[in-house]
């Protein structure tokens, strides 16, 4: 019995600790809440992505901040669970966060109605609702980079450029059986009708570690090109199965979730020629990355393994914060401090042709367009690194926006 009471006292003490653990609000810090999934489903991207985000914020702080304001990252694990995400969100809101990034589709979806009500900016980089690109319906949600619809359009356009037209081509779309996997289907169907190519979908069961049955179907279909739509552990399996079924790596086009580690898992030589959609440049040969190396990594202020600097997901993290900090800068310039969610939102909408010093396609946001144009490019694995093979471009935004508007209208009616 005595042991039990000791245990109880310990638990209560721990609880009290967390209750008092809310930080004081300093007026000259801008708080970005990075409440992400470090332990469950998104682990393949979160570590590097989050490291990039925090390193970039450290860089800005080391350079003196903006207008005397410094940035603070509030980091919590949500385990991809909506209830934990919402708890972390409410806590961050209390601590004065003006921006949240969940990097988790289920959590972001559950948070949409709350950020709209609380007027806090939510960035949904490469996840979340694609229809949130409609800024009039979702004033506080910023997908910021190309939605999955835009990615599909960019990939289809690349095939068209390569083959002098899409007519009569067979495109197989192999995806993980989830809403994420089937998201680009309507855009591709519309394109198939318009361009006169054959399009067929093949789903493999989640989590994608076993896909052989699906790929023997794909083999019988004899596609000219294969688009693979998965994330994490399923991606290298897709590539390996595709190659085993006689599809040349040059004819495999991947969604944005394909990184150095995936190519290494497949085998650096085997994967040579593999193509992917790229939203942010990879590597360290960019002014921002050089400054991060110099100011953050070398003095030992980095948040994680310095090996990760310059990888695909690290750079996406850096770019997401670069755009957000740019928005904060514009907002402070226009309205002055302290920064609120509403000012930050207007800051985002003021961004025009911002390319993070060459790391990204030039992004422009407006009151209507929160996607930033839907730009991307194709890069190819050359055996050692991902090498860009095209310039930044956006394609078929008319079809993409049809989808965005259709789903956004559904959201408006549902409320």
């Amino acid at each position: 019995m005595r042991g039990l009471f000791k245990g109880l006292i310990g638990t209560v003490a721990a609880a009290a600790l967390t209750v008092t653990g809310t930080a004081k609000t300093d007026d000259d810090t801008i708080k970005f809440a990075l409440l992400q999934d470090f332990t469950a489903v998104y682990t393949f991207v979160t570590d590097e992505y989050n490291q990039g985000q925090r390193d970039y914020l450290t860089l800005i702080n080391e350079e003196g901040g903006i207008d005397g304001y410094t940035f603070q990252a509030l980091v919590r694990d949500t385990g991809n669970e909506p209830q934990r995400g919402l708890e972390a969100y409410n806590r961050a809101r209390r601590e004065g966060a003006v921006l949240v990034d969940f990097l988790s589709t289920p959590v972001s979806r559950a948070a949409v109605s709350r950020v709209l009500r609380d007027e806090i900016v939510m960035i949904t980089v490469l996840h979340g609702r694609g229809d949130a690109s409609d800024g009039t319906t979702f004033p506080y949600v910023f997908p910021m980079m190309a939605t999955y619809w835009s990615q599909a359009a960019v990939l289809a356009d690349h095939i068209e450029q390569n083959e002098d037209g899409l007519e009569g081509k067979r495109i197989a779309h192999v995806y993980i059986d989830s809403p994420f996997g089937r998201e680009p289907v309507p855009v591709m169907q519309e394109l198939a009708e318009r361009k006169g190519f054959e399009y067929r979908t093949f789903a493999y069961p989640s989590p994608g570690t076993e896909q052989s049955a699906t790929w023997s179907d794909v083999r019988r279909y004899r596609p000219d090109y294969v688009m693979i739509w998965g994330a994490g552990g399923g991606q290298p399996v897709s590539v390996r199965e595709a190659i085993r079924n006689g599809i040349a790596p040059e004819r495999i086009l991947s969604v944005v979730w394909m990184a150095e580690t995936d190519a290494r898992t497949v085998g650096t030589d085997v994967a040579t020629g593999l193509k992917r959609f790229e939203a942010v440049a990879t590597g360290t040969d960019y002014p921002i990355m050089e400054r991060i190396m110099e100011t953050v990594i070398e003095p030992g202020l980095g948040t994680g393994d310095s090996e990760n600097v310059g990888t695909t997901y690290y750079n996406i993290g850096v770019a997401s914060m670069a755009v957000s900090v740019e928005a904060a800068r514009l907002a402070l310039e226009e309205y002055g401090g302290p920064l609120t969610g509403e000012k930050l939102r207007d800051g985002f909408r003021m961004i025009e042709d911002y390319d993070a010093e060459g790391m990204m396609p030039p992004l422009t946001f407006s009151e209507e367009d929160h996607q930033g144009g839907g730009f991307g490019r194709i890069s190819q694995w050359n055996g050692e690194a991902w090498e860009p093979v095209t310039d930044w471009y956006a394609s078929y935004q008319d079809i993409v926006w049809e989808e965005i508007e259709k789903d956004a209208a559904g959201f408006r009616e549902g409320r």
Partner: protein
Amino acid sequence: MFYRLSGVHHTRYETARQLWPIPADRWQVWILLALALGAPLYMADLYLTSYMLPWLVWSAAALSLTLLMGVAGQLHFGFAAVMAIGAYTSIHIARAGWPFEIALIGAGLTAAVIGCVFGAAALRVKGLYLVMATLAMQYLVDWVIINVPAISGGAQATLQTPDVTFLFVPMQGDTALYYGALLWAVIVTVLVLNIKRTSFGRALVAVRDKDYAASIIGVNSFKYKLLAFFTSSFLGGVSGAVLAFCYYQAVTPEQFGFNVSIQLVAMVLVGGLGSVIGAYLGAGFVLLAPIFLTNAMAYAAIQGWLTVSSNLLAHIPLMAYGALIIGFLLFEPLGLAKIYDNIRKYFLVWPFRHSGS
């Protein structure tokens, strides 16, 4: 001393049979209820919306499951699917313009009917085989929701809950949503407490303990197994709807995945099979312990007491959580409810050591 047993004499059957025959238990319940009712007055909205509200709804869900698993002894590893059916039914009914009250009942009935269809397997199989049958339900329901856009809501697979009113009260704002959840939790609690002391509940217990022995003494195990699935799925379905409308305010397939089913089973087991207070304690533990642990670790890291990589930092709460579950079950295999029971028994006769019985 605390419970003041001396002088409590029941002279009528009604007083001896009431839910809490000991006055001390009764005033504890009243205090808890008063605290819960007054929560919006003294609790910051963070704790009200992020801790109390989900805790109440998940407790109601765990109670629904403990009725099936603990009282009737039918293992169910697909209870999240039951809740999903309730959530999706209610949201579609509400979006079609019907009143929220109808949507809730519809949610319960649909979940109960579909739950019964899979529960019919329980008439043939028991134990681990029933686990497999209910797991199949989980995957089938998941698959149907994901693959039928008319249910899941198109490419985004997200349905926002429409604005509704419940008994003329608009369900908007933290307070209204909280009271909605509290009302449902109280209803389920009183219902399960009462089921346990009626002939229905005793029949369920008889079926749990040995189904053919039950049929020998005249309990139709066919009927009572199905009734158990029906009742529990009905409550689970409404809990799913309440979860969707009062807490998430948007429904996506991931909210009711397989891992959620396992969490529900964990709530019931850690809390104590078949126990009402166990459902509350279990739901609180499974739902809130990871949150507390994550925040405590993050606080320790911010204070500089803990200098580890952010990756390890995110995983320490998981390890601690696992260790806590093992610890609790080693310490008291009958769950948190048994720990409560031990404490209560200790104070029942305090300052003496033994109750004699």
